[in-house]
Structures are given as C-alpha cells and as structure tokens.
C-alpha cells in the first residue's frame, strides 16, 4: 500500500507538460521557418492584425478628419508628475506643457541659443545685465474665459514659484531678484509695473539669462503663465480642477502619470490654431506597451527606444527626428575636485590626479572607447559624436577645431591608450589591474540606451587593463554621491540635456562658495572643479556682449577639451515614431525633444 501510493504520488499527467513542450517547439520553430517565408508572409503575423483594426478608422472618415482628429501621444512617464506647476522639475511639467506659454521660447530649428519672443513680445536688458524691461503681448486670452493676459499673471506665476522650498528654481530666482517674491520686489521699489503690459526689474545681482533661461519655455515651471483671476477665485485647487493658461490647447482632464487630455481653444488663438482639435497624452512605463499602442492604432505618436524602431518601420510607421540633437550622453570621471579637495583621492583615483598624469589617464580612458560602434549599434545611427561636454555647434563658444581634431585627440586607439597608461605610471601587472574604477549604471528617463553604454564603456576600460566594475545603482544614489562629495571612485554616464552654456556650466562646472557647516561646495552639482571654470561662469553672469561671451566660453571649452576633463560620447536627436496615415508633420521641442510644439503638428490627408 505504502509503496503503491508513493509511486502514484510521483506520477503526474503528461498532457499539460506536453502542451508546454509543444509551445516551446513552436516558439523556436516559428522563427526557424522564417527564412523560407520572407517579408511577404512574415508580415501578417503581428502587424497585419494591428493594421487591419487600425486602418478603417482614419480612412473611413477623411472628410471630418479635421474636426475629429486626435493627436494621441504615448510617452514614458517622467519620474515626477504633479498638478502644481511650481513643484515640477523641468521634466515634471512636460505632460501639461501644451496648455502653457512662457514669456520667451525657442525654435527647434535654431536651437536653444536663439531666444524667441512668446508672451513677451520684446525685452530690454541693460549692458551690465542688472536691469530688464519686458513688453508683453496684448490681447492674449486666458482659457475658459478668465480674461486677458496681463502683468498680474506674470507676478502670480513667479510668486508661486518662489513660495515653496520644494519649488524648482526658487533659490536662483530669489537670489537674483533680491526678494522672496515679485510682490516683495515691487514693495521694495525694485520692480516697476508701468502698465498692464510693461514691467521693469532691477536685479540684486547681474543675471544675463533671465529672458533666455529663467522665463523661457526651457524651464517651464518657472514661468508657465497661469491666470491670476482664476487663482483669486479658486486658489490652488485650480490646478487640479482645470487651470487656465494661454496656450493653443486648453485643459480637459488629467490623471497624474496616466493621461492628460486637451482640446484646441474654441476661439482664434493669438499664435496658432492647431490642426488636431484634440490632444491626448498617455504615459506608460513599458516600451512594449507604447509600441503596441501605436501598432494597434490606439495612439498615433509614441516615443520608444531606438532598438524598437525597426519593428515599427517594418509595420509602416515613420520615425520623425528632431533637426538638432536634444540630449547628449557624456561620461563624467568623478572626483576631479581640485578646488574643494573634499574626498579628492588622486592616488587611488588617478583620473583625478593634477597635471599631466591625470590628463594622460583621462586621454587613455577616452581613447579606449569606440564611439562609432556605440553610435551605429546602440543608437542605430541616430546620433552624432559629442565633441565636448555641454558644447555644441549651435551654442556660443563653439570651436570648430574640436570637431576637426577629434579623431587625432579622442579617436579609438586602445594600443595608444595602454601606452599612455604605462607612461603615466600605471603599468599594472603586465598591463592588467592598472587601477580600479566603478562604472555606475543607472537607467535615465529619456535615454534608455545609457544602460548599454555603461556596459560597453566598462568593457572598453577592461580592454586596456583598467579594473572596471559595472555597478548598477539608482540614479538618485549617484546623485547623493556627488551632491554630498562622497568618495568618487566611479565614473558616471549621464544624460546631458543640451541647454544654453550658462545653464549647463552652472550644473557641470561651477563649484560655488563652500558651506562651512557642510564643509563642501554648494554650487549646483559641479561634477568637475576648476578655478578657471568658476571664473568664467561668474563673468558670464554679467556679460552681455556676444563677442566677449563667445571668447569666455570658448576659453573654458578649450580647457575642458584639451585636458580631457570628460569623456564625451554622443549627441542624440529626439525621435518619435508616428503613424504616417494620421500625422503628417511634427515640430519638435527642445529639452526632451518631445513636447515642445505639439500645436504645430499637422494632420495627414
């Protein structure tokens, strides 16, 4: 009895297992048979279904395309989403950007260096960059009948921005304004409201980029102008219920991190009347989901990693590229804290060593990396080499020699790299284990390829004998590490948004004053410290003469370039995959390249 039950107990039925086994065979065999059935038969599989269900809709009613046209965008959710504009970082406001306008803006064709008027039709700046006069557009309607846009709305916007310690640009704005709010500035007599459409500000300290940066679309939360009349009536609840702005689209509904819906304003917009009367933005964290949404006709414009583009193109979708690169990927060899010397360990971290040694080590690290391979394989050719971190052809200070000399100075040459390390005094054991470095690997929204780049860079460093370990970290932890000037035994691939030189110099290279209590510098993030960069940054803040600004930024750029301060990798153009039967044209934005100018999208006919 016992024996029988034991045997029976261990017997299990074969049918379910057989089903699993068969599925395996089918899965593997499915592709094995593919060569016999080329493109024509291969098509029906996934996409045909998608196409079949998607196709009828747009073709069935071409006549009313204009009225019913919905631009449905599916994008990666940003790490942060909020109803309150002042709490949003420059990324966090993106899903709601279509309804806001700013005092100034930029165009994707000319890039961030050319600042264009938007709600401010013009502005004057004093030669020492300490006094501004803004002239605002007249006759601009606020949504939902909240009256006309005036200077009051600007004051409300900035006041909200400076009221919360969590707000994005609070400290910088209050510092140059010399007051805790615009209202206080007026009370102090530093700001004159001349009429409903003109105001003058006298700044506490010179700030050259108030119009270019702080009031620009690039930092939307700072100056996404909202209705003061509505705020007076509804308070902060307005942001959840349906805020009024001035953009070509007005608010319909929104669920944080899920959807935001907009409709074209019912009146003649002062700037542009969108062809798509409805706009829906869905966020979904899974790349596969967004691609599937496009293929099944649920969405007509999605952002997906480049590795998935080919799949979409095979199904007849089209990839739109921004005219200029929107983000770059650069690798920062950490710990070059030559000024503050907090946790500065040139002995164990030779890439931070002063003088020639450090320079040679960093050149070797640069030379170990095969940028062509990264660009062609990881970015599918949708990128171009970055020649110098934070600089670009479209920005001030550009030096053409960086591009011309790039192959000679930064080109892929592992043998030379090994030689350089030998000469620099790191022969290791027969060219192995020269020194240790950790390569931090973290996924960044907007540039999923960072993970693979980190992997590749670690391998390239291993190839020249550096003991490089790949360490997966949350980006927030890396942020902790360099904010707090922890031990800098790592190098970090970061996404470098292409911004004006001022803004990026502040984040990347400005050390700032040292906080006695913390014992470390407080200026921004300052990945790399150098007296020259501090001096240039401070001079740039008050310099308005373009030639002098060019000279200063180029001087800084030359120094960074010639000393191999960073490991620049690639500049990437923003891409969106669209259904060409529904969307004909799209005007890219700037920061992430995605949301800037949705109102200019054109309906396919």
């Amino acid at each position: 009895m016992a024996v029988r039950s034991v045997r029976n107990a261990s017997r299990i039925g074969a049918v379910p297992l057989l089903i699993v086994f068969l599925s395996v065979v089918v899965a593997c065999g499915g592709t094995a048979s593919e060569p016999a059935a080329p493109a024509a038969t291969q098509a029906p599989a996934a996409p045909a279904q998608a196409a079949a269900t998607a196709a009828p809709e747009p073709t069935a009613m071409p006549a009313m395309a204009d009225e019913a046209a919905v631009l449905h965008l599916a994008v990666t959710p940003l790490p942060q989403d909020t109803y309150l504009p002042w709490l949003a970082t420059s990324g966090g406001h993106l899903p709601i950007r279509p309804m806001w306008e700013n005092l100034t803006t930029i165009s994707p064709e000319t890039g961030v260096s050319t600042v264009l008027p938007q709600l401010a039709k013009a502005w004057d700046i004093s030669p020492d960059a300490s006094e501004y006069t803004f002239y605002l557009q007249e006759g601009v309607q606020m949504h939902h009948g909240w009256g006309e846009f005036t200077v009051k709305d600007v004051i409300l916007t900035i006041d909200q921005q400076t009221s919360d310690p969590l707000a994005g640009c609070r400290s910088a704005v209050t510092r140059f304004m010399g007051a805790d709010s615009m209202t206080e500035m007026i009370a102090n007599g530093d700001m004159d409201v001349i009429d409903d459409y003109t105001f003058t500000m006298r700044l506490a300290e010179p700030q050259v980029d108030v119009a270019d940066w702080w009031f620009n679309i690039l930092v939307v939360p700072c100056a996404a102008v909202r209705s003061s009349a509505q705020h007076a009536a509804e308070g902060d609840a307005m942001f959840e219920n349906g805020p009024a702005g001035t953009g070509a689209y007005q608010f319909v509904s929104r669920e944080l991190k899920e959807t935001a819906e907009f409709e074209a304003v019912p009146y003649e917009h002062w700037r542009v009347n969108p062809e798509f009367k409805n706009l829906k933005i869905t966020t979904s964290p899974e790349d596969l989901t967004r691609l599937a949404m496009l293929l099944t006709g649920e969405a007509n414009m999605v952002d997906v990693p480049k590795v998935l583009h080919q799949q979409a193109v095979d199904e007849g979708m089209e990839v739109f590229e921004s005219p200029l690169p929107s983000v770059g990927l650069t690798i920062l060899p950490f710990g070059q804290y030559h000024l503050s010397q907090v946790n500065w360990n040139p002995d164990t971290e030779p890439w931070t060593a002063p003088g020639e040694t450090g320079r040679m080590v960093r050149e070797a690290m640069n030379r170990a990396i095969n940028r062509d391979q990264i660009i062609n394989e990881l970015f599918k050719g949708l990128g171009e080499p970055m020649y110098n971190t934070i600089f670009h052809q479209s920005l001030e200070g550009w030096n053409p020699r960086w591009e011309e000399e790039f192959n000679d100075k930064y080109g892929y040459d592992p043998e030379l790299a090994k030689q350089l390390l030998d000469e620099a005094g790191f022969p290791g054991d027969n060219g192995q284990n020269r020194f240790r470095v950790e390569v931090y690997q973290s996924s960044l929204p907007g540039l999923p390829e960072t993970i693979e780049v980190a992997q590749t860079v670690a391998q390239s460093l291993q190839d020249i004998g550096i003991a490089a370990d790949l360490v997966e970290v949350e980006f927030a932890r890396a942020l902790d590490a360099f904010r707090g000037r922890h031990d800098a035994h790592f190098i970090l691939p970061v996404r470098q948004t292409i911004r004006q030189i001022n803004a990026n110099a502040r984040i990347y290279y400005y050390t700032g004053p040292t906080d006695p209590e913390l014992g470390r510098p407080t200026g921004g993030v300052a990945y790399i410290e150098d007296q020259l960069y501090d001096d240039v940054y401070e001079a740039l803040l008050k310099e308005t003469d373009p030639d002098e600004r060019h000279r200063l930024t180029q001087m800084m750029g030359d120094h960074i370039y010639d000393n191999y301060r960073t490991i620049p990798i690639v500049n990437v153009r923003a891409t969106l995959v669209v259904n060409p039967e529904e969307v004909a044209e799209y005007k890219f934005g700037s920061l992430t390249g995605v949301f800037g100018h949705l109102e200019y999208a054109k309906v396919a006919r």
Partner: protein
Amino acid sequence: MAITTAPVPASPVSEEAAVRPGALGKIRHWIAEVRRLPLFPVTMLLVFLIVPALFSELIAPHNPRRGDLDDRLVPPAWSGDVVSTRTVVERVNRENRQNEIKLSDAERTVRIGDATVAGKAAGEAPALGDQIQIVVKPGGQGKYLLGTDKNGMDIFSRIVHGARLALVVSMMAIFVSGLIGTVLGILAGYYGGWVDTLVMRLVDMSLSISLILVALVLAATLGPRIENVLIVVCLFLWSRYARLIRGETLALKTQDFISRAKVAGSSEIRIMLRHIFPNLVNTIIVLATLQLGFVILLEAGLSFLGAGIPRPNPAWGVMVADGRELIIDSWWVSFFPGLAILFTVLSVNLLGDWLRDRLDPKQRNV
C-alpha cells in the same frame, strides 16, 4: 500516524544502521537508493541546474558578463537571414511598405551597414528610385546557440552561469533560514511556555508581512544587491521551518525515548541535539527541497523587478526583464531564461513532492 520509537522508517540512515553490510553493501545500497529516485525530475534538475552550476566555465562558450556590440540581438543559431529588396521612395505607401523604404531610412541603414544598394559600391549613399537589399532580420550565428541580448551577450552562457547564481543564492538562503528556523522551532517546542509564545508570535508576524514589498523597500534604500535577496528570504522563510519543527518537536517530546534519556540524566542540549534533531532531519530535508523552488522563483521575481541581483550578473530574472520590451522582434531574449526558471523550479518541485511522499508523508499540506 503514530510515531514509533524508531525514527522515521524509510530513511536511508536507519536502513543503513540496521543492515551494516560493509563497504560493498553500502555502495550497493546507495545505488539502490539512487535507482529509486524519480528519473524525470532528477534528470531535469541535473540538466538545468546542477550540471550547469558546477561546470559553468566548461559549458559556457562566452563570458557571461561581456558582450560584443557588433553582435547585438543575434537570433538563435538555427534562424536564417531575412532579407528584403526595397525601392527607395520619398514617401512610403503603407500598403506597399514591404517593398518600399523612405530615403532617409535607406541612407541610415546603408550608413550603418545593414543594407546594400544594388549596382553601387558598399557604403555609397542611395538615391531615390534605387533598389536596396536590406537585412530586415539578420540570422543566427553558430557561436551563439540561443542568440544574444541587447548588449551582445551570449544568452546560453548567461543561462548556464545564471544556474550557479540561482543555486548558490537559494541554497544559502535556505541554509540560513533553515538553521534559524530549526533552532527556534526546537527551542519553542521543547521548552514551551514563554519561549514558545514568543517564537510563535514572531512566526505569525513574519508570515503576515508581504515579502515583495519589504524587498522593494530594501532595494530603494540599499540598491539592488544579492545580500538583499538573502535578507528578505531569510527574514521570512525561517518561520515556515520554525512552525513545522515546533510541531514535530512537541510530538517527539512526549515519546518514551526522550523520557528515558531524561531519566538517564542527559542534558537538555544533548537531548535536543542527539535525540530530537536526528528525528527531524527528514522533515527538514523535505521542507528545504519544497522551498527551493519557491526561493528560486522569488529571487527571479525580485531580480525581475530590479530589487534582486544587480546587472551585469546573469540572473535569470534580470534576463527575462531585459527581454520584455524586445519580445516582438527578439523573443529569445526573455524566452529561454524564463524556460530555464520554469524547468528548474518544476524539477525541484517534483523532486520535493517525491521526497515528501517517501520520507515524510505527514507533511501533506506544506
């Protein structure tokens, strides 16, 4: 159901003790034991877990932590190239998309070497109206049996090395939690009273906390690390041992041979170690085997969520996660690692079930 004085009947230890047949007999006895093992799960276990884990270096043809970017997403060795000829046009007609390609796309694919233009030298830019030969999907390569992932790492090698990782992590977790659980369980069962109450309340609490949520918190605070997996598994698994062992100890305590040992003046520690523990070995082995599958699944799940074993370690869960977005085009990236998990856990579970019926039929519902 009554437990006899002689420890659990079918255990190899007891038979051996009873027969004492000398070295040859011993070997013969073990062969008999091995022959009694269920063929299917044991073979599967050997093939999918034990052999790859022990001989990873010999079996795996590539370094599991390095990839070649030139060989990204290579399909399994048996798939062939899918090539298509397309006409370069200004605007692709969607109905005709299998035969046409947009000029800018054509230029790019030629530039990165995925396509050649008919009648032009390699690398020469295509013009409107040209015919281009485009490799829609490159075929497999002999050196990558199960294909490669998006880093160009060999999936087969990663699965093989992943077996070692899975085995080591789960064995460690089970050993540590088994040790804690057994000690606490025996103490609780033997002493009763407040020790029992304390241990059992701890057990209840540990069973009432959601594993995965705590793992997520750990991952958020400490980052993904192997230690996290161990901590999480141990924190919770010990209680399952403790509860079971306590029950068994309670039953054993009333047996005659324990009372006799007490009368004979054995110390309490000796009683627990020499008289109670040996009678629990079968129970522990069965439970450990039954938990092994659960732990492997849990570890894979945590790794999948990014709360387990960090990259570039070849953890099966991470491999499945990495292939998720690629499932349309490159199904092999998550398919094979998942299959490895399925077969391993299945074989462990089958073996555990068999062991339970054979060694410890009491544990029906564990």
